[in-house]
């Protein structure tokens, strides 16, 4: 029984880790669906959003280091603290402004380019934002606390311990992340099914040309999509940042989302969730059971190999649109 509980514990933790990956993957999917862009900058957007949030909460002066280097004026803090919820809302506004800027100065000029060129442009954007984010908020490690509890879920631990003699471990942060992910997916689904903008979004995803011809403004849609992706990045940034503090490594979480993405299919929101769960459970079980035999630290490559194995059978991912090729 204890063995089964341990197994279940690994699976549950894997599932929840998968949700965390899916949160990042979601941002990729949204943008890819609406504009066919593989947005490499998604990870950096999460870093930027989280750094902005911490900066706002703590009343940090943006560009403080640059100001002091140029003018000699040393100001680092405004001296006030903003309520976390207000700060999240303000960060949302910043992400909206970012979306407008990206659309205005990059995307508009690159309409109808090949996917690899657009991909490259997002890499340029990632570089830019990496430097910009550090210039603006500094590259020190910043603790992020928006009131999400962390640590073991005690009721479950006690209940399982009393019943079976083995207390199961689940992290509160993961539970909250799961709840938030569910809310996020449900509201995204509702938004795209029942609002006018949402329907326009789906139309654009189906066919750019046709959408344009019925009078949908592509540029407006892109701003909306990038804003939503920015907010998803903010959520991912909050979740990962609460765990490890806000720092440069936050931008590397994109790498954890890529196998999720190809497994689930670039164009499917449910795919991102299911893909995340499969990758999460798969890599945890592998590392936990087989990892110690072959030296451990297998998670990075195993996620990709697992995704590759699925791709051999379904080249468009589990839920991706069927690839139809014509000469």
């Amino acid at each position, binding site marked *: 029984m204890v063995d089964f509980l341990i197994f279940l514990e690994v699976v549950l933790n894997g599932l929840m880790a998968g949700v965390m990956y899916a949160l990042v993957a979601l941002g990729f999917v949204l943008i890819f669906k609406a504009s066919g862009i593989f947005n490499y900058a998604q990870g950096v957007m999460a870093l930027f959003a989280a750094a902005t949030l911490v900066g706002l909460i703590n009343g940090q002066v943006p560009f403080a280091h640059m100001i002091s280097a140029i003018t000699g004026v040393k100001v680092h803090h405004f001296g006030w603290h903003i309520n976390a919820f207000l700060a999240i809302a303000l960060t949302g506004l910043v992400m909206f402004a970012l979306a407008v800027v990206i659309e205005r100065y990059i995307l508009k000029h*690159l309409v109808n380019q090949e996917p690899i060129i657009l991909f490259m442009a997002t890499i*340029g954007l990632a570089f830019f934002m990496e430097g910009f984010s550090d210039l603006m908020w500094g590259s020190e490690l910043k603790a992020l606390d928006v009131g999400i509890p962390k640590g073991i879920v005690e009721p479950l631990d006690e209940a399982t311990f009393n019943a079976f003699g083995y207390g199961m471990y689940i992290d509160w942060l993961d539970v909250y992340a799961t709840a938030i992910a569910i809310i996020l997916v449900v509201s995204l689904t509702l938004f795209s099914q029942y609002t006018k903008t949402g329907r326009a979004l789906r139309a654009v995803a189906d066919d750019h040309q046709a959408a344009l011809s019925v009078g949908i403004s592509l540029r407006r849609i892109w701003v909306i999509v990038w804003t939503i992706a920015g907010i998803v990045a903010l959520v991912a940034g909050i979740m990962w940042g609460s765990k490890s503090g806000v720092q440069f490594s936050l931008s590397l979480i994109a790498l954890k989302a890529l196998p999720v993405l*190809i497994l689930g299919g*670039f164009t499917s929101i449910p795919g991102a969730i299911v893909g995340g769960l499969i990758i999460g459970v798969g890599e945890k079980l592998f590392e936990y059971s087989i990892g110690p035999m072959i030296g451990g630290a297998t998670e990075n*490559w195993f996620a*990709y190999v697992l995704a590759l194995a699925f791709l051999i059978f379904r080249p468009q991912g589990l839920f991706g649109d069927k690839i139809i090729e014509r000469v």
Partner: protein
Amino acid sequence: MFYREAGDFKTSYAADGQTFPISFDKARYFFVLFIAFIIIPLVINDYWEKSILIPFLVWSIAALGLNILTGYCGQVSLGTGGFMAVGAYGSYKLMTAFPDINIFFHIVAAGGITAAVGIFFGLPSLRIKGFYLAVATLAAQFFLVWLFNKVSWFYNYSASGQITAPTRTVFGIEVTGPTAEPWATYLFCLVFVFALAWIARNLTRGRMGREWMAIRDMDIAAEIIGVNPLKAKLTAFAVSSFFIGIAGALYFTVWFGAVEPTEAFGIIQSFRVLFMIIIGGLGSIFGCFAGAAFIVLLPVLLKNIFVGMLGWPTDLAAHLEFVILGGLIVFFLIVEPHGLAQLWRVAKEKLRLWPFPH
């Protein structure tokens, strides 16, 4: 005015099909070779060798390799770092196992080993396409790096897992190790670059290159006109990996002399080579050099301007470096999505008539 093509008349197909049909181009080409082979070795110093020229040459080879795969055959790969690691560890094992054989052959053999590994990891390309393939090649990237980190045989059971290149000579002149002269290591790399660029140029305009380009432009159509996609894709992976393997071997033996896989061959290197070929120009040999020069030299140049000349704090300079590099990438893509090679072509067109455009 500055770029003339008038007066060149060809009387045979062979003469017309040469790489530099215009005599002005040919003269310029020989001039560059003259500078590279004769002048630079005379004036090179440690800083230029280790920070500018060797990096440029090594990354050029890697860019040539990836450009064959991505630019000519249309298969996007993000496994470059992993394949470079195969080249590096291959050359290390060969160098330590057969110390009497000339290092030149070790490096070529390391390229051969990488080609074999490349074919294996290229197999999924027969079924998976586009970004799906790009992400799938990351499996190779992460797995290979993990492998070289974990299996002690690859690093001869050394305590820390670092591999160190022993001193080796060519014609009695040291080309690896800390005491090697800058001109020797530079010329050693340059010979590889020259030979490989020549091979790449001739492969890509031959039958094989045309098959690759047919696959790139539309694989189904290519298949219908009789191109074997299995053969074309796998040869592209093999040739590309051969180049990248040699780049990895030189990176380790000549440039650094000591590496550990996690950092030296991390995913960031895979992206770097991809940047080079996209910025330089997909499907262009010149573009590989231009892209490598851009990615290698720009940060060094910016650093020297900000820190050396303006005396700014180093961290501010480093952040601005990122901002400017990112901004320039986006700017170049907007101005000329087909890379520096295309800009160069446009410039040549302009120069043909300049200063009398009418």
